């Protein structure tokens, strides 16, 4: 079986400071990988390198494309990479306003990716938008409202709908539940979990919230100071952490 994503020796520095270094892993279809670590550990730098938002100094990010099989997305042409990020890839930002067009209606936000890949039937686009609003538990009545009129949780769900409408195979998520109330987080996680299962998505989730990865991620990568210090099955890493830093991380979580 071919991995969906093969990451090889990714390295990114900001001048003398290491963003991330020596990161390699394979992600298989349907797998959800969590990347945890504290602020400044390099997890967001890594995610941005993987998603093509940052150019790594070294290394390869090989994606198994539908048309041509495994291709290094770092060296592929920009049109190809942008096409990938509109079709087979999705990126869920921590702040919904970074991932939404705030001046465009909910329906228009969801429809944009469809129109970007050539859908030209208003009725169909609108039907799909309404279907996706339903899947992320937003009332059809809100389809013409702008996201500025939505709560934080709704904005985040709208962002997810906007990303998933083209049926991507790989979703990058940057702190998808950050900044949301705990009750809203639970609902969002439940929703994400269902969608990941239902659509057979592969996902890479960056978070500092261990509860999020326990619920969503099959496997875990723990980062510190730009280095990967531990990887493994999520429940094994959380219940039987091997590295000093992971032990500290796990034992620092407040028990409720």
């Amino acid at each position, binding site marked *: *079986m071919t991995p969906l994503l093969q990451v090889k020796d990714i390295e990114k520095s900001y001048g003398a400071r290491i963003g991330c270094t020596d990161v390699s892993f394979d992600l*298989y*279809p349907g*797998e959800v990988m969590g990347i945890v670590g504290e602020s400044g550990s390099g997890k967001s730098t890594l995610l941005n390198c993987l998603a093509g938002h940052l150019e790594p100094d070294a290394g390869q990010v090989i994606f198994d494309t539908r048309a041509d099989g495994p291709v290094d997305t770092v060296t592929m042409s920009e049109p190809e990479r942008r096409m990938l990020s509109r079709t087979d890839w999705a990126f869920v930002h921590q702040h919904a306003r970074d991932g939404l067009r705030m001046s465009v209606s909910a329906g228009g936000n969801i429809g944009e990716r469809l129109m970007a890949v050539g859908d030209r039937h208003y009725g169909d686009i609108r039907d799909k938008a309404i279907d996706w609003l339903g899947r992320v538990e937003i009332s059809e009545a809100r389809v013409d409202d702008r996201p500025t009129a939505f709560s934080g949780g709704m904005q985040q769900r709208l962002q997810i709908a906007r990303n998933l409408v083209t049926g991507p195979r790989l979703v990058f998520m940057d702190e998808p539940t950050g900044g949301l109330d705990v009750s809203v987080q*639970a*609902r969002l*996680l*439940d929703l994400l*979990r269902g969608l990941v*299962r239902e659509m057979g998505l592969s996902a890479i989730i960056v978070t500092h919230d261990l509860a999020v990865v326990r*619920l969503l991620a*099959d*496997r875990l990568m723990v980062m510190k100071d730009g280095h990967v210090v531990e*990887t*493994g*099955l*999520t*429940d*094994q890493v959380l*219940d*039987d952490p*091997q*590295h*000093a830093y992971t*032990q*500290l991380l796990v*034992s620092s979580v407040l028990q409720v």
Partner: protein
Amino acid sequence: MIRNMPIHSCLCPAFCRFEYLEKDEAMIELTDVSKSFTLHNQGSAVIPVMEGASLKVDPGECVALTGASGAGKSTLMRVIYGNYLAASGTVLVGGLDVAKAQPREILALRRETLGYVSQFLRVVPRVPTLEVVAEPLLALGRDRQVALDKAAGLLARLNIPERLWSLSPTTFSGGEQQRVNIARGFAHAYPAMLLDEPTASLDAQNRETVLSLIEEAKARGAAIVGIFHDVEARERVCDRSVNVSEFTPGQAA
């Protein structure tokens, strides 16, 4: 690592390693397994909790783990399930060495081959009970209706009133939650199972049902490792016992 002789024909198209297990080969086989915890943040204290653990469970066999509280029964179960990382030795389940396997291989193993009924139900809030029980089958890509029918049958057998099936089990009583957990654990016919106190706090009727489920699993060839404080239940379903105190460092036999 790959053996011959089908004991279980799995539907998983991706990771299946279990179609070719040799006849009379143990389903679960631990060889000289040790486990210790290194507390890096407490002066790097190394706490050995298990040494020289060996165990062999054949298809159709049920082995009870015994020993005093804290002797390491749960630790051993967790090592077999891949939840704890063995420090040394091999932990073969259906031919896969859990101690060295990739995460995705362990996940496939857990989906296909190795079931685990823990003492506590851990579910995502808001998911209806029927879905919770059917989930292991749905995860294997089984037909939705078939999965739901199977789940309904198990819930009925375990006396969960039908009116509760559409509700999330998070609001259920302790006993009800445990029965939901057991129904979920038995939804898929795993070739290997780990049972942690499956009959604790059940009334006579439900206890009987659970013991029948275990017997049926054995009859279809499942290899089972269990912790039973209920001595009668243990004597009824288990073929033999292994005292894990033998594997406790410093107290070895």
